[in-house]
């Protein structure tokens, strides 16, 4: 089976067969290593340089793209300004972009 995407192509089955081969080699390596640890001890706690992890110490979803937002703040702020929260605005944008795409397609 080969998927052709106009110019490109790939065969998922060939990749899966290759992946199975690599998994076999990785499994061999894994079987040579130790798989045990001292369960129920401090080993299992997250490493925080000796500090106790405060309850619920996580990076929240809203911070996932912090670097991206910080690096491109002027661009992100401009995008944010578009998000008024009114459905009518979003539909208007959709219609404008669709009209432009159709125009380009027709030309």
């Amino acid at each position, binding site marked *: 089976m080969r998927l052709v995407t106009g110019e490109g192509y790939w065969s998922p089955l060939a990749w899966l067969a290759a992946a199975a081969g690599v998994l076999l080699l990785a499994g061999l390596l894994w079987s040579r290593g130790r798989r045990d640890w001292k369960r129920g001890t401090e080993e299992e706690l997250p490493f925080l340089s000796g500090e106790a992890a405060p309850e619920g110490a996580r990076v929240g979803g809203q911070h996932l793209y912090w670097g991206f937002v910080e690096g*491109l703040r002027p661009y992100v702020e401009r995008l944010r300004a578009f998000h008024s929260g009114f459905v009518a605005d979003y539909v208007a944008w959709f219609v404008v972009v669709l009209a432009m795409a159709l125009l380009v397609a027709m030309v």
Partner: protein
Amino acid sequence: MSGVHLVWQAAAVMVGSGVVGLVYKGLDRKLAARMQARVGPPLRQPFLDLGKLLMKETVVPRDAVGWLFSAMPFLAAVASFTALLYLPWGPFPPILRGYGDAVLVLYLLAVPALAMALGGFASGSPLATVGGQREIVMLMSYEFPLAVALVGVVWRLRALEVGPAFSLATISANPLWTAVGPLGVFGLAILLGCLLVVTPAELSKIPFDIPEAETEIAGGLMVEYSGTYLALFYLADAVKTVAMAALVVTLFIPYGIAAPLGVKGVGGQVLDVAFFLVKVFVVMFAAVTTVRVAMARFKVDQVVRGFWLQITAAAVAGLVLLVLDKAVMG
């Protein structure tokens, strides 16, 4: 080609690239140490490290999503090793030629980074979560110029009508430098420069080692990995380094040495494979070893700005020059 022959070749490439990747890792560490006036570890140190990791306990943290945490090292290894099967090896075309193109290789090279980020998120460690978040942001930054560099080469090759342009065998068999005019050569040089900047970012090496950043977040997304799982990530990293450098060589320096020297037959093939490995090493040395010795770590927002604005602008300029070259040369 028979199935047995194919399996034998694939196994040889995988094992060989694993060994080459670890040897290059040793060379990288030795040469970096020499540049810093240190003696450095012996060349075989990466092999010793791998063996040592296999003897260590493999801890799964208490708060981790166990199956996801354990599966990600395997996914990283699978993606890194299979990428090699779609790349040409000097005079030899890709093992899986006809089964995957250059775009597939780009995706496969992105998977180990995703696997590390997912593993970091799954570990339940705050430091690893910060590292995972940084890895995702990095991925969003360098993929764009990388894709532009590839598209530039492929687009110009397609205009020359030499075969399926996305095929790495076609790209490798048709070096562009002599097929384009002066504008095209300048455009290709810019794209090569962009790709050399992207290479250490793709490999998370200094100055782009932000997701691991030992001095800030103690190893970041790798902080909870140990023993066999860390060994798999270590091996995947060594192999991905070879794959990334091999991609740069295939796109921009696919020349052999046997034909100009008049060496034919098996001797010529051996010479070309050796020359290919030297080119891969030179790319790694130029883009990874020297850069990591000479530079300090960037901040993640600097990386985003640099890749999205300066490097992407440079890559697009290279692409535009190739388009202009086509218009001039016909």
